[in-house]
Structure formats: C-alpha cells, structure tokens
C-alpha cells in the first residue's frame, strides 16, 4: 500500500467546470476545515473540520421520513426542527430524504479517489486548466501537500486558494499557483474579523515567495471594514516587495454566502451594508494596478 492510499482528506465538495478559481477550465476540490472565522465567510459550512449535517430548507417537502431518526434529531412539533447536538452524523436521514434536503457535508476521500474524480475533466484542462484546492483552508489538512504532489505527478496543473495561515514552503514545488488571501493588513482588525492574527499570513507569504512560489493575491473588500486608503497602500506595497507575485484580484463582498450559513443552523450572516461601492472598488483597483 502506498502513502496515497493511506491518506484521506475530508472533502466537502468537488465542483467541475470552475472558471474563476485560476486559469482555464478547472475542477475545484473544496476541503473542510479552516482556522479562520471570517465575518464575511461565504462557505461557512466548510469552516469546521468535523462533518456536519446540512439542511436545505427549500428542498424539504415535509414528508417526515427523517423523523425515523433514532436519536430524535428531527422533530416536527413546531415546524421541522433539527437538534444538531443529538446528531451522530450516521447519515440515515440523508439516505431517507427523497428530495435531498438533508446532506452530510464532509466525505473522507483517499488521494486516489480524489485523483480519479478530478481526472474526469482532464480532456478539458489543456495547457492552462487543472485542479484548484479550496475550502475551507486546504492546508488545515495535513495530507494536502501529498495530494498536490500526486496531482503534479499526474501532469495536472495545480492551484491552491489559501488563507495563508500555514507554512506552505513544502508545497511550493507542487503548486503552480497560490491564490493567496490578504483579508486585511491591519493587525487588530484582522484578529477581530477573522479570529486569527495577520502576521503569520504575511510571514508565510514571504516564505513561500522566497521558495519561488507563483502567487496571486486575493483581496476581499468589505465596506466599512477594510475600505481605507492605508489598507490599499499596504497591499500595493506588499505586491512590490514580493518577487513572484503575478497580480492581485479584488473580491468585492457579496451577501449570498449568508443564506448558506443557515444550512448548518447558523444565523444568516449576510449583510448588504458590507457590499463595497463601485468607487471603493475602483480606487483599490487603481492602487494595485501596477
């Protein structure tokens, strides 16, 4: 048995034909678990490392086949209530639910399995496309570097979307492109809005750069949170200092992610007030243009 057989990764979703997670046609592997808890997270069901029960309210037809749960997770006294405390993630309700309104998020897949899955679109990757690891934070799972290594060995172009909280120098030789989040450059705000410090993100970024990583910065822009001139300037300065930075993308906050929070029983955290203005976006673009 080789190493790849033994390592499993917890995957929340594999999406084909992704056009905006790096160049060309890409398959994006979303991995579960993230050290950060960003205020604006749009994939909140991928934050926890543990598997989670998702409930798609709009798909539920009220058939109550899930009420057969032995642990009493699903009750219907006051509408369909889900007691996640009691849930052992056995998957019985997922199996019984005819409309796929219930879903266990998080599937442990071996590297071989993942490779098999992503190779389905190999004919479309061509010179530019390939696989992007996202999440969650891919590097929160120890097997990720091995996965990247295997993907490279298969001749597949690799990209990783990372929050930058981990030292990734080991993965640099197997990663064609890092899409590196710079969520904020203000230390206090970073800590407050993501739950993690900014310094490690910047340190890891320079370590990766030094190791020769090709990097594209990804800058979330959240109105009233990081829409100040100083932050823009800091990002521009950061770009200048990096040796292998190939550009930066601005990702304006959108509120769609909010409704996804409800899947896991969290509050809808979508807030339209956080959407940046055109003017803010253009100003930021201007600053990082060169």
């Amino acid at each position: 048995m080789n190493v790849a057989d033994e390592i499993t990764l917890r995957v929340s979703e594999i999406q084909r034909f992704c056009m905006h997670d790096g160049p060309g046609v890409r398959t994006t592997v979303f991995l579960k678990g993230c050290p950060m808890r960003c205020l604006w997270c749009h994939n909140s069901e991928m934050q926890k490392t543990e598997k989670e029960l998702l409930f798609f309210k709009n798909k539920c037809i009220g058939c109550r086949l899930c009420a057969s749960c032995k642990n009493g997770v699903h009750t219907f006294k006051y509408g369909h209530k889900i007691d996640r405390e009691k849930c052992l993630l056995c998957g019985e309700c997922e199996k019984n639910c005819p409309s796929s309104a219930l879903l266990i998020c998080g599937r442990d897949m071996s590297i071989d399995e993942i490779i098999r899955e992503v190779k389905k679109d190999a004919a479309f990757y061509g010179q530019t496309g390939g696989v992007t690891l996202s999440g969650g934070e891919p590097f929160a799972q120890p097997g990720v570097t091995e996965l990247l290594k295997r993907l490279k060995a298969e001749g597949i172009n690799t990209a990783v979307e990372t929050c930058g909280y981990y030292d990734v120098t080991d993965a640099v030789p197997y990663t064609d492109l890092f899409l590196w989040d710079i969520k904020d450059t203000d230390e206090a705000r970073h800590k407050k809005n993501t739950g993690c410090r900014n310094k490690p993100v910047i340190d890891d970024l320079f370590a990766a750069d030094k190791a020769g990583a090709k990097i594209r910065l990804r800058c979330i822009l959240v109105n009233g949170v990081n829409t100040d001139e100083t932050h823009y300037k800091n990002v521009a300065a950061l770009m200048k200092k990096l040796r292998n930075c190939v550009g930066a993308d601005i990702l304006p906050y959108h509120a769609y992610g909010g409704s996804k929070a409800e899947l896991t029983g969290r509050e809808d955290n979508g807030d339209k007030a956080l959407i940046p203005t055109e003017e803010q976006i253009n100003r930021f673009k201007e600053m990082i243009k060169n």
Partner: protein
Amino acid sequence: MGFASVNGIERPVRLCEKTRAYAEESLGHKYGLDAKKTPCVSLDGITGFESFSPVQKYDAAIRAIAENAPLRICDGELISGAATLGAAISHVVPAFYNGAAVYMSNSHLTADFFSIVKDGIDSIRKKAEQAYRKYKGTDKEEFAKSCINCLNSFDIWHKRYLKELYNIGYTANYENLLTVPYKPAKTFYQAVQSVWFAFAFMRLCGNWPGIGRLDLLLGPYLQNDLQNGVITLDFAREILAHFFIKGCEWICGDCGSGDAQHYQNLVISGVDENGCDVTNEVTYLILDIIEELGISDFPTTVRLNKNSGEKLIKRVAEVMRFGGGTLAVYNEDKVIESMTKYGYELTEARRFANDGCWEVQVPGKTNFSYVPYDFLQLLQKKTLKSYDESVFFDSFDTMYNAYLSDIRGLLEGLLSDVKTNLMKCEDGGEWVWKPNIPCTVISLFEGGCVEKGRSYLEGGPVYNVISPHIGGLADTVNSLYAIKKLVFDDKKIGFSDFMRVLRENWDNDEALRQYALNKYVYYGNDEDEPDLLCARFLSDFADICKELDNRSGYRFPGGVSTFGRQLEWSHQRLACPYGRKSGEVLAANASPTPGSDKEGATAIIKSYCKNPLVKLPVGAALDVKLLPSSVKGEEGLDALCSLLRGFVLLGGFFMQPDVADAEILRKAQKNPGEYQNLSVRVSGWNARFVTLNKEWQDMVIEQNECCR
C-alpha cells in the same frame, strides 16, 4: 440600435460607417418588410395555364418571377441581386395562380456553388443542352427542357439587373455581373458576386439553400488578389460584409419560432478533400464580420479537428463570447469517420457541409430530408400503453426489447410510406422514382440532376437520404433508466404500482417523485450507468437504421434532433418515470433533460461523447448553454478554448454553445425594443430573441437558467 452583445463588451468596429448602417437597416427588418409588400407575381394572365403540364406550369412560374419580380438595388451596395418576393419567405414558389401558390419550394440542401463560381453557369447550360439532346424523345425530355427554360429565365433576371445597374451608374457591380455568374470568376470580388447572385435567384424562386464551405471556395481568389495587389483585406471584408447583410434581407420580425431560419448556413475551416487544412483569410474575415455585426444569418459552423490551430480556436472563442449562438462547431474527425464508416468515399466525406441546418451531407449532390419522431411518446403511448393497467414487464430487458421492436415497427412503417409515396417497383424488380412536384431551379445546382435527366425530388442527386431522427433522447433514456432503477434494481415499487403512479401524474406520491428526481443521476452528468444506457440505446437505434438502409434507393442514416419540437411535444407527453409531470419542458436534441444536468458543461460534453456518434453519420446535436460571466476575461477565454478542444479530443460530433444570460433574456422579454438584434441559438438555427413567441422565449430562458 447597435449590435447586441451579452458580455458587456462593445463589439469591435472594423467596417465603415456606411456598411454598419446598412447592416442595421437589414437587421432592422427593412428589406424583409419590403419583400412582404410584393409577396408574389401573378400567373393569372397566362393563356391556357390550366392545361399546362406540371413542369410547364413551373417553367411559366419561374419565367414570370424572372420577368416581373421587383429589382432591389440598395444605396451603395457592393454586390447586387435580391430575393424580393415575400411569399418565398414562406417556403413556396412565389408565383400565384388564382390567389394561391402553385408549388412548394425546396430546402435542407446545400447547392453546388463551386461549379457556379469556378465554371460559370454557361457550363451548366452546356450540360443542360447535352442532356436535352440525349433525352429527346424519352420521358426525361421535359425535365431537360425545363432546365433550359429555367436557365433562360435566369438570363432574363440577370439582364434586368445589368440594365438597371448600368442606368444608375453602379459600374463595379455592373462590370462584375458582365462576367459572373455566367463565366468563371476571376477575382475575389467577382466570386462573391457570383455566389450571391446565384443564391439570390434560388431564393427569389422560393428555395432555401445552404451555402456550404465559403472560405474554401473564396479563399484562393482572395489570396491571389492580395498577392497581385488588386484588393486590400479591409475592402475584401466590406464586400463579404455586404454578402452577410444581404443575407438578412428576409428578416421581417415575424413572431413564432424566430424569424431567421432559412437554412442558409455556411461552414468554415476544416480540411479539403485531400486532407489539407483550408483555413485562410476568408475564414477570419467571416469571423470578423460575425463578431462585429452579431449577424446570425448565415448561421456559421466551424469545422474543428485535433490539429486545429491555436489562432483559429481562440478567434472562434472570442466571437462566441459575444453571444447570440452565432457559431457552432463540428468535430470533423468524428464526422468524416462516421461518413466513411457509413460508406461514403473518404474524399466525399471530407467535402461535408450540411443541409443548411446542421445535418451533415455531401453538399451540392444530396437530396436530404429527415423525419422527426418523438421517441418518448412512442415509449409512453405504445410500449407502456399510456401506463394502462394491462401493461406489464417482468424485467428491464423484456421492456427494453419490446420498445426496440416498437421502434423497428415505426421505422419500417416510415420506409414503407416512402416507398408508397415516392417510389414504384418496375417489372424487373427495380425501384424507380415516381414523378414529384417540379423543382428545376434547385435541380440545376445539385450535382447529378441535369446529367441524369432527373429532378432533385426524383432521385437526380448523387445521394438520396431520408434520415429518421430520435427526438426526446435524454427524456427517453432517463425514463428507461428510472424504471430500471426504481422497479427492477432497487425495487422501490412494483411495476404495476409504478404505472399507476405515472397514470396519476405523480399526484399521489410526491415522496417517490422526489426520490426519482434526486436520488438518481441521469444522462448528462458524466455518470457511466445512465450514459452507457443512452449509448446502448443509440447503438441499437443505429443498427435498426442500418438494417433498413438502401432498401429502396434511399440512404437511411439515423440522427438525433428535436429542433425545438420538444415544445409542442411536451403538451402531449405523459408523466415521466424520472419525476417529471406531464406537460413540462423537455430535453432538446442530444442534450440532457433540463434540470437533470447538475455537473456543468464539461460533464454534459463527456456524457454526450460516450454515445456511439460514429454510427450516426447525419449527426446528433449538443446544446451547451454558458453564462457570460463564466467566459469573461482572459481566464474565461482560455476556458472556452479548452472546452472546444476537449469536445474535439473526446470525439464529439456537433455542438452549439450559446453564451446567454437568463436575466438579460428576461429583460429583453420585457423591453423588446431595446433588444431588437439580440439573437439566441434555438436549435440548429438562430433567432432574434424578440421574434420568438412567449412560449419559445420561456423555453430558451429556462434552458439558460439551468446552466447556472
């Protein structure tokens, strides 16, 4: 008005202001509405008309058209000739007797423009005269005479244009027409005029021919002229743009299934009969024009192969991104392989173009028609007896075989109808053609007819094809698959109970309906089990077609299409085993059932490519809907190129990608005035969205919605 773009980027400007204004007029219905004012010429005054033979009547009609159809010379037009009689837009010969059309006209063919441009119509006249001498005194004499009569009429119409052009001082057009189309074209400009003039005459007489491989035809002329310094690339683009703009002269904004489906497709790039790449400057000029004007007539298909150059693919992707579905693609490797396997010579297969829509044929020598069938209806109403209590199958295979035998019955019935209606068996046991309605004009330009002394509809062309088409492929396969899984594999419900559930339109078992919809993966998701069932089904269908092939002088290759018929069919369809209720919108062509494709465009293409496309030499069309946002920027362009390359690599046949946004379409539905020239790919043809009626518009929106 501007030229509609779905991706928020302005279309580039290369043509002069005057040509752009001309395009706006033509796209804005000016000439279509003009033609409607003079729908036809009258035959009422012709003495003894009623006592004429059918062919004599036809010849008189063509002559009356040539003599009396209004001429139209547009201000500043670079090429001349126009199909100005409105009834032709309704597919009849626009010459009326006692207020009614006398003859239907012809379509689903591509005329032989190569002979017209390279040899000139004089050479066709020579052949016609030879035929007349040869067949004098036989039953073919009348047709041979008719060929000469129709060429004489062509002559009359040609002379009228010459006179008018001379009078108004359009010297260049006049001088070109002194040479073409009678003599071989000497220059690119003359070659374009030659194609257009012959095309316009065929259309004037009511026919809807396709153009075929325009870059292969015109490329050498342009190359020669450029080398000799007699033309610039910019002027060549203007001339060709006028060809495209004049091609819109039948657009009149009528509502229905769209106002732009006169089967005038053209095909670009690919290899020639020797296997050499034909891509040339004309290929790129055509792409320039489509990109700038968003003109969807002529709907253009690009022949790609595994060696297609980076430059071509990128250019195709760039044009596609503006939306409108103006470009479709063949993977010619597969098309040629399927045609040679079927029995065409390799050189003939390499010549392929289409019937003016997307069904593959050898251009200029094929009489083609197709017969569409709703295969889902056959399954529901015949094999499953409308889910009657009496129907029962104890295994999937017995059900499947019963269905195949119903299909065989259907196809045998078709063949026997063809025999009864079109053919007769002579004493020696040989099948010969029965007389059909006259169609001399089109017969002149279809290889084989003049030589054989037989018209296009009477077996004249070298190849005669009737192609039975599967409609509702995905719905049928998904239905079979759902029964297999629910009843026979997973035993969720007994066969008879399931028939009851379906009979009741799922009204009493929503949980099972949801289970069928959500717990199984259907055709179009790159999942082997349903995809291979589809492949098996198509293979069995193709085998039946093969068995019945050439039984009576007809080729009988199968194809897959709906051409939008899914809309009318949907009303008569019962509930589907995979969870659809009766009357819901169903799958188009060889595309997945809307809503059942959950893995995106690449998975759709992969599922489609698992089919035995090589056994379907007429073709199976795949529609792929893409959102403008998913193909924007350099990354998006890369992705679209990769999608095209992947399609070829995986062995696809024909794909019509359409970049459209359901939201934009909805806006166009509300404010049609602002979206006059926004075109969408419907199915083998493009239509200006605002000229589709509400039902068609909704279907297109729904299909685009599903690609999200």
